[in-house]
């Protein structure tokens, strides 16, 4: 699946998008896998309360299933308008 990063999450991880092979069932499990990879992921995902997640372009929460998802995106709280 594609994992996307926006705003300071993108800057901390250092890329906007990557393809990830995972057996993770939920967003939280995916986050744990990513944090275990490298320090920059551990830093970016250090405080989940400062992050939001979308699965297949719908806002959801960290307990959400990612089974069959094509796209998971992580970003800070939105500041549109």
């Amino acid at each position, binding site marked *: 699946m594609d994992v996307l990063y*926006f705003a300071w999450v993108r800057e901390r991880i250092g890329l906007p998008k990557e393809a990830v092979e995972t057996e993770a069932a939920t967003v939280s499990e995916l986050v744990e896998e990513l944090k275990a990879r490298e320090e920059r992921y551990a830093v970016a995902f250090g405080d989940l309360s400062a992050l939001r997640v979308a699965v297949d*372009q719908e806002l959801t929460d960290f307990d959400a299933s990612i089974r069959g998802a094509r796209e998971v*995106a992580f970003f800070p709280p939105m500041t*549109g308008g």
Partner: protein
Amino acid sequence: MRILVQSEPFDLGDEAKKFASGHNNMGAIVTFTGVVRDLARGDLDCMEIEHYPGMTERALEKIAREALARWSLGDVLVIHRHGPLAPGDMIMMVATAAPHRKDAFEAAEYLMDYLKSRAPFWKKEISRDGADWVAAKDEDEDALTRW
């Protein structure tokens, strides 16, 4: 319903006129326009707006559809820019047309409240002192409890 996500500037006058003239028997038209404010120090060089192509349009359409379902409206317009903007530039606008003013006002406020916190845009302020992501405000999240 018309949703535009674009880097190009828009003309509030032209858009308001086009929106207003396209509606039959809507007694009330409300527009909201957001403008890039300078920093307190007065040294903002640029505001960079990042967004999530694809999700942005879906999120704005969802918010607009919800407004059309909740209020008696003739139409909704949402325009939101992305990319680099200068102080004084128009960032976005919404417009609502309704038979009565209460619906037009409430729907416009609803659109703005949701657009602030539920549409995937992020603002970065760039000045000579560096670049800072604009933090979401608690009051913007709290505003959603009204609906």
